[in-house]
């Protein structure tokens, strides 16, 4: 059996295993099997490639393996609140690799006089996607880590400028396909896509980065697909397409859950103008002490906890777990209501709560929990705001009108933990806080929850 056969078999097996790997993520019980399948697939792909007769020296490859591993291990150990920026960084690496391979292939085929129109076009696409993903993801990571200013930076005709840049890059690509040897056009594509990546992200607010990184995920996948076309490699195309569709679907889910369009996220500079008006009539809120909250919770039959971005910021998930334990021990039925965009990236609340050892059966999706809220005694909102704002349901003028929300206002009592009356990401007031059945527990989520847990634990077990 020739080496070529062996390589192709490895690639075929790797492609099938990558698919199975993602399939097994359909349930937490089979998910770790998915990781194993992924690792085996990657090993087969790398092992097969190393057999290729074209390879004449392994030393550089070995060095790169060691460097990559040394960089990779610490990146896998980041705290879970930093996973969004780590993910963005990793897209940057992916884009970079694709871009560099494109440059290398261009230069090789140029020297060998083997630049066909098809090859050149595929390389141009690969480099465009790769390099824009590279700088775009770096910017996104910076915003998420708050190294780069998180507020949208806007100027006149911004969208026009950005789109013109992209158009020029695409024109250069078309030109290059016709005149493959005109390397200046190739260089222009690289510079333009590096610039475009930065400019694309600048006007997008920090809180929109999760949607953007999902989209960049998709671009990273597509640049791998383009590389597959360049190298005529079906495994690259398959794996890239899996990645591309994953990123695309995740960003669609996020946009839907915010009732916003792609265009609005990318070009809307959301969160910049929102005049924090609407104050007007002086409405009153009822505030509650930790002891009040503890009493309410221990005397309830059904409690739904609604975690939001504030819980992640306050790192309050372990306190939430203590509360969950105390309450379930007392026979209270406690569930968590997870809004798709709560937190800093898709599914972020789930990992944070799982880290705090809350069983995943207790984490219920928005659509499944909403019908239960009218029978709920206490809805406990922990650092969430927009995702429980009833204006989304009825106020046609509200910027979040139409966004699906968790019906915290339908519970018999609602307790909201936050530090102030400040609005959340969308910059608008939340009538929920002024409702008759709502109590506000002001303070840092970690602090307040700690006090509540202490109050419950200290209490003599109440008549239940």
């Amino acid at each position: 059996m020739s080496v070529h056969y062996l390589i192709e078999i490895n690639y075929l097996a790797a492609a099938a295993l990558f698919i199975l790997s993602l399939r097994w993520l359909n349930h937490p019980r089979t998910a770790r099997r998915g990781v194993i399948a992924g690792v085996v697939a990657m090993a087969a792909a790398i092992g097969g490639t190393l057999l290729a007769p074209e390879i004449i020296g392994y030393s550089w490859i070995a060095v790169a393996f060691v460097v990559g591993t040394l960089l990779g291990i610490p990146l896998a150990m980041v705290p879970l609140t930093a996973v969004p920026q780590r993910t963005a960084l990793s897209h940057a690496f992916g884009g970079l690799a694709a871009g560099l391979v494109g440059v290398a292939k261009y230069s090789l085929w140029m020297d060998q006089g083997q630049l066909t129109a098809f090859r050149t076009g595929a390389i141009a696409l690969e480099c465009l996607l790769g390099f824009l993903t590279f700088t775009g993801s770096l910017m996104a990571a910076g915003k998420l880590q708050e190294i780069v200013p998180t507020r949208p930076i806007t100027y006149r005709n911004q969208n026009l400028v950005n789109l013109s840049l992209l158009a020029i890059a695409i024109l250069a690509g078309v030109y290059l396909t016709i005149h493959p040897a005109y390397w200046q056009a190739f260089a222009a594509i690289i510079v333009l896509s590096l610039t475009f990546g930065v400019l694309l992200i600048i006007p997008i607010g920090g809180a929109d980065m999760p949607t953007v990184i999902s989209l960049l995920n998709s671009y990273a996948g597509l640049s791998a697909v383009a590389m597959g076309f360049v190298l005529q490699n079906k495994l690259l195309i398959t794996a890239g397409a899996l990645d591309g569709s994953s990123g695309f679907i995740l960003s669609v889910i996020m946009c839907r859950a915010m009732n916003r369009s792609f265009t609005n996220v990318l070009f809307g500079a959301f969160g910049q103008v929102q005049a924090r008006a609407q104050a007007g009539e002086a409405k009153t809120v009822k505030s509650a002490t930790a002891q009040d909250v503890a009493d309410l919770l221990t005397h309830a039959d059904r409690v739904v906890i609604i975690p939001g971005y504030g819980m992640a910021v306050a790192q309050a998930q372990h306190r939430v777990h203590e509360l969950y334990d105390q309450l379930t021990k007392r026979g209270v039925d406690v569930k968590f209501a997870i809004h798709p965009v709560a937190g800093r990236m898709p599914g972020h609340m789930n990992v944070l709560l799982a880290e705090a050892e809350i069983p995943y059966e207790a984490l219920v999706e928005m659509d499944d929990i909403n019908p239960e809220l009218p029978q709920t005694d206490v809805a406990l909102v922990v650092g969430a705001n927009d995702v429980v704002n009833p204006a989304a349901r009825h106020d046609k003028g509200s910027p979040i009108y139409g966004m699906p929300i968790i019906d915290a206002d339908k519970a018999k009592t609602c307790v909201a933990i936050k530090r102030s009356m400040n609005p959340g990401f969308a910059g608008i007031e939340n009538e929920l806080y002024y409702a008759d059945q709502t109590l506000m527990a002001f303070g840092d989520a970690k602090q307040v929850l700690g006090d509540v847990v202490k109050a419950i634990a200290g209490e003599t077990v109440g008549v239940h």
Partner: protein
Amino acid sequence: MENPVTLDLWSMLFVFMLATFVGFQVIQNVSRLLHTPLMSLTNAISAIAVVGSILIAGEQESRFTTILGTVAVAASMTNIVSGFLLTDRMLRMFKERGK
């Protein structure tokens, strides 16, 4: 007889079309609970670009391309190692009730 490169283009397009269908279907079935691990797993998977990078780094056609290839291998390897490790680390946290 068509030349093999053109012939192959259509195979590539077929593979792309089918893989996109597979991708959409498979991802739509991923549990919403696991969207964060999904992202880090696809991160690792798209580091399959390592395959192309290894060939460039190993062919050693010129110093320039070898360096580019080596950097690309290192970048991809970073994603592979951190992607799989992080995914596994997160998935280990998901526990069933009573376990």
